[in-house]
């Protein structure tokens, strides 16, 4: 099979959300001698870019993005070690610990952001909903996160986002992490007021801001 065909195949398995087939295609790509970097960037990433674009236009929905992210991760698990072996850097853009902050049970918005971050090459640790502030920090330290992302749909859970920043300062580790906040009642102004580094009005903006902040605050 030609290189172009293999790349198209990888992209399509991601777009169609087929993890097993994506993993098989990744193995096939390596066996055929295709450069793993090329397979990732021009195959998997190309597929994910289309998925992100289609989701923005409401051509596909959250479950399709979830399946696409699973397919990409299945293929990445095979291609990335090969790429690293060739002396390259990790293709992952950064590590994000994400969760719906304490007191809030709403998680679909957070799930959308988590999936879009995954789709854009971030390594995402999703802690779920009603996540206590100290648990978010503990996990972030454990995995060496670059970004802590907290979401809420409730104005009465917003104070816990302030607590998150306060506790990071109290522990003397505020500068270790980029803190991003978002969700229904959270505003750009408020994010700034509490000293968060970034804010996303929606999933697309969250991804854009995370990428920019990583470049600015933590150049790799």
């Amino acid at each position, binding site marked *: 099979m030609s290189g172009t065909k293999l790349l198209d195949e990888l992209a399509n398995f991601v777009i169609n959300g087929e993890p097993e087939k994506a993993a098989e295609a990744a193995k096939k790509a390596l066996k055929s001698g295709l450069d793993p970097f090329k397979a990732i960037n021009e195959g998997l990433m190309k597929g994910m870019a289309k998925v992100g674009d289609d989701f923005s236009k409401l051509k596909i*929905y*959250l*479950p399709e993005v979830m399946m696409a992210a699973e397919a990409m991760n299945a293929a990445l698990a095979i291609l990335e070690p090969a790429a690293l072996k060739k002396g390259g850097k990790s293709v992952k853009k950064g590590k994000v610990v994400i969760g719906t902050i304490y007191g809030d049970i709403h998680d679909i918005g957070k799930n*959308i952001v988590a999936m879009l971050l995954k789709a854009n090459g971030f390594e995402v640790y999703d802690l779920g909903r009603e996540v206590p502030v100290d648990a978010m920090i503990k996990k972030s330290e454990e995995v060496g996160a670059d970004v802590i992302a907290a979401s809420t749909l*409730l*104005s009465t*859970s917003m104070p816990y986002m302030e607590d998150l920043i306060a506790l990071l300062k109290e522990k003397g580790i505020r500068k270790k992490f980029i803190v991003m906040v978002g969700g229904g009642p959270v505003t750009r102004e408020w994010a700034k007021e509490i000293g968060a580094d970034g804010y996303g009005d929606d999933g697309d903006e969250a991804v854009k801001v995370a990428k920019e902040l990583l470049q600015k605050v933590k150049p790799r």
Partner: protein
Amino acid sequence: MNSIWEVIDKTETGPYMEERDFDLKVVAKRCRELVKEYEIKFDPNEIITTDDTLADDLFEAGMRLALEAGIFCRSTKRIIKFEESEVHEAIVSAPNKLHIGTRKDARILYAREIEDKRAAIICGGQAGAPIPEEWYLPMSLSYMKEPLIDMINNGGLAVVEGRKVRTNTPLEIQATRRELSMLREAAARAGRPGIHLLAAESSVSALGDLAIASDRYMRTSDAHLVALLNELKTDYDRISKIVNFTEYGALNVTLVDPIIGGYAGGPEGVAVCFIASFLLGRAMYRSDYHVIHPIHFRYMSTSAVECMWNLNIVGQSMARNAPFILMGDVWTSAGAGTEMIFYETAANTITNVVTGSHPLGVSATNGKYPHASGLETRFMAEVALETVCSGLNRKNANEIVVKLAKEYKDRMDKPDIGKPFPELYDVSKVIPKPEWNAIYLKMKKKIADMTGLDL
């Protein structure tokens, strides 16, 4: 009859399932399959539909989803399933007429029909918004003073006595009690002491809700909202609220707000999910009336074209097959003080009133900023009244709504959020400031000229 006791039994004994499997293998999968099987299609040029078969097909699809899926209880990871006979009983026993409020302020809230000729009940307030404590009383009064407003659903308090309210803490109790005290005070000052309150918005967990079941705060002629979690889910906090109010004797109201772009899929899948949610919500919560609130994954607003189509088709489907009392939310991207809010309010209100629901709003800026007042809700009430008085049918209403939506749909990404309440109203007299009043008069004329409605 299926009682709350049996529902609690089902949360303990229903089939066990992982939540992710319920989201993907049940909700996502079946919504897609049913949309395909019943050929349900969204058309942005037909926001208000005239196809009765589509409405009936949607109902059948929603009923099948309700029976197959059930409700996922997050507290126990068990599915609360209902037999077909239980769902039918829930439909048949649902009130289609209710007395709300008391004495001279009492109203009859009823299940609206398609193209109903009766005046809609107007529910005013910036539902869902965190409102500063210092404005809460005058802002509530700004709605109560509007004679066309029949009932109130205002936002909650995020700060009480200078302290930020946090979910699941004692302050939630204080905030919910303070919210109700101020609503009562505003009602008394407006000379409408018996006005129906749909309230306790400050109670996110069950804590605040449990603390206001008393004549001093919430009367048995009032109501509280209990959400169905997204999608087709509940938990013990929601069920606790129901248990408490069922015994207390006040009204239970189900809030159903599936997300367009979420697990249920696009506008069509969300419509199927809506029907299932209403049927299961009634069977589970024994709700007296219901709030219909489609959420757009990006804009949030119910005034988004996909959301209005949902308000339309779900409203019609329910009116024809399960006539529940429906309140259709009017949530705008724009804030009070802007011109854009009038276009959104008019389109959203006409859609609701023609297709089987009463308007509830205006929740400006989607409740994000307290940039709201009684004046834009007066406009909502005037549009609702004229929609009925002019005898607007679905076809003509659609032409108007499509035209109105063109005025704002491309600006929903970056809406003008307007101004906070104290900049719009003279807070001591609780009357609109001249500049805000001038925008209202200008836009009322502009929309009347544009639509042919005698506003």
